[in-house]
């Protein structure tokens, strides 16, 4: 598509227009990231009054700390489960919404709503639902004989943050899956139907393979979300507990740094996380920009 080219009369105007966004990026992203990198090489004393350069000591300590590996394990389980749950459900919803003839827009709007809910609010919402004394979901689970208590059971706590985090991501995935489904020409479904494939067979042999570029893209996005964007969900519900059962990496960064006041160690964790985000971004651009081919 041809876009209209805008010509500015003054040289500085375009820069001025970009300034707010640049300022936000600089102040809230680039600067703190730089600070974190610098800080990861220092150790602060207990009163916060002196800094000491320690080289890679923070990293060495980090990688010899069993609780860090536990956190990685928790994060991986959480990220995989969240992505799997969010993607499966959203694909199901998209497949169903794609077939709806009447009230299409209403369904789509409702399915997109959760995306607008703040992560912390989503977390609190699910916490209330699963609260052992007042939560209706916990009550329902108790009726079928499942004792759900996120404050004492590690598995319950994990399930709670997975559900809360996945719920928020379903809307986003739904949009992409729906667009992906609509990009498949109708005649391909029809040809498959004439070729004797029923709806289920069509889904697995035609739809799913043709959606693979979307699926791969969403997998990366969901992993990034689950790894790095779910602090608020954890903070509002389980606070990493019970014990360290739901202390995912981003949560641990905050807890070690601002509760444990180990600023150097926390900064080192941030740097590791930054490297992971960078790697995932590379994967995303490398493989997704090229579009998965079929």
């Amino acid at each position: 598509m041809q876009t209209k080219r805008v010509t500015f009369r003054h040289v500085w105007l375009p820069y001025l227009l970009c300034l707010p966004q640049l300022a936000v990026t600089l102040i809230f992203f680039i600067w703190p990231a730089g600070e974190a990198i610098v800080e990861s090489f220092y150790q602060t004393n207990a009163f916060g009054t002196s800094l000491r350069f320690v080289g890679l000591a923070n990293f060495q300590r980090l990688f010899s700390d069993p609780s860090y590996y536990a956190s990685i394990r928790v994060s991986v389980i959480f990220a995989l489960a969240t992505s799997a749950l969010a993607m499966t459900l959203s694909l199901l919803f998209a497949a169903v919404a794609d077939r709806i003839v009447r009230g299409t827009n209403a369904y789509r709007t409702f399915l997109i709503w959760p995306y607008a809910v703040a992560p912390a609010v989503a977390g609190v919402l699910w916490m209330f639902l699963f609260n052992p004394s007042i939560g209706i979901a916990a009550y329902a689970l108790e009726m079928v004989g499942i004792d759900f208590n996120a404050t004492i059971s590690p598995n319950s706590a994990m399930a709670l943050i997975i559900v809360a985090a996945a719920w928020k991501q379903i809307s986003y995935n739904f949009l992409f899956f729906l667009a992906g489904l609509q990009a498949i020409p109708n005649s391909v479904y029809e040809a498959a139907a004439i070729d004797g494939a029923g709806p289920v067979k069509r889904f697995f042999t035609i739809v799913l393979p043709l959606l693979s570029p979307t699926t791969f893209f969403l997998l990366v996005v969901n992993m990034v979300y689950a790894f790095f964007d779910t602090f608020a969900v954890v903070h509002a519900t389980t606070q990493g507990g019970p014990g360290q059962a739901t202390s995912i990496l981003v949560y641990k960064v905050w807890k070690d740094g601002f509760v444990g006041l180990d600023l150097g160690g926390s900064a080192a964790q941030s740097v590791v996380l930054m490297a992971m985000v960078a790697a995932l971004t590379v994967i995303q651009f490398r493989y997704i920009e090229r579009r998965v081919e079929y």
Partner: protein
Amino acid sequence: MAGITIDGVRKVYPNGFQAIEDLSLNIPDGELVVLVGPSGCGKSTLLRMIAGLETISDGDISIGGRIVNRLEPGERDIAMVFQNYALYPHMTIFDNLAYGLRNRKTPKAEIKQRVEEAVQMLGIAHLLDRKPRQMSGGQRQRVAMGRAIVREPSVFLFDEPLSNLDAKLRVQMRVEIKRLQRQLKTTSVYVTHDQLEAMTLADTLVVMNAGRIEQAGTPMELYSNPATVFVATFIGSPAMNMLPGIVADGFFRVEGDAAGIQPMSLRGVANGPVILGVRPEHLQVGPAIGAGLSGRLHVISSEPIGAETLVYCEGPGSDPLILRAAGEATHRPGDMVDVFAPADRLHLFDTETGEAKPRLTAVQTVMATGPQPVT
């Protein structure tokens, strides 16, 4: 092998639009029937109803004597070739062809054999490992045909299969489809809006308009004896010249300014308005020979297209009269030409209903340029 019977079929969409109204058609076993008509005439809807891709609002469709109204497309023993080919983009050509057979649990060895036969027949054997996007439009078209052929269905359905191809390829594939259909003797329904394609392919040509069948018959029947004004103008290119006029006192006179067209003696036709049709190829340049329509016309423009020249003359209405002259004809704008069409080449239509009246014979007319009969 099976014929198709369409009995009183209607299609009404939920919004009340009636795409097909009470349509009946019998397609004998092994015949190639072409449905042709302008867009929105219901031809594709009818095809999709036969395929099972659209529900039938009323009436019955049976294939091989079995009513298929409630059967899934996959259970109707049909194969369809789509306009955009609808190949499975993620599968190789082999898998594209084998998909339908695998779904029907055909043994592996038989699948391989049938796919190989089909690709041999279509000359795409060397492409088996390719994916659709690695092929040209013509090759994709062949794969789409192959996918229909391997299934060995009782009916082939074609939905404008050639409209995405360039002109040369279209002619080539048209010949090929005809040849394959002859060879396989599979009952086929072919939808197109291209009347040339329709004429060349059809055993039976069905002209549709506004959800109804205007006329069904062999291509030459429809060309020589169009049943309605619609068919007359739809079949043949350039279209038949239509001259609205009035029959009175044993004469046909064009309406309004005659623009040089002579009154024509006409007996045995009731007085009143009629439409007179004459094909460009039947309007000859030259003096009147025998009975028929004649006139002296003003040339507006001429289009030499090699084998013939289309001469546009000023007609009585707003439309020009077109006549087909020899390739070497050198009529220039501004020239006056004598034209003549013999009586047995003329068509008369009812102005109200658009239906054809009985064909004229030379006896009904006398030389228009001759002395007028005494009443």
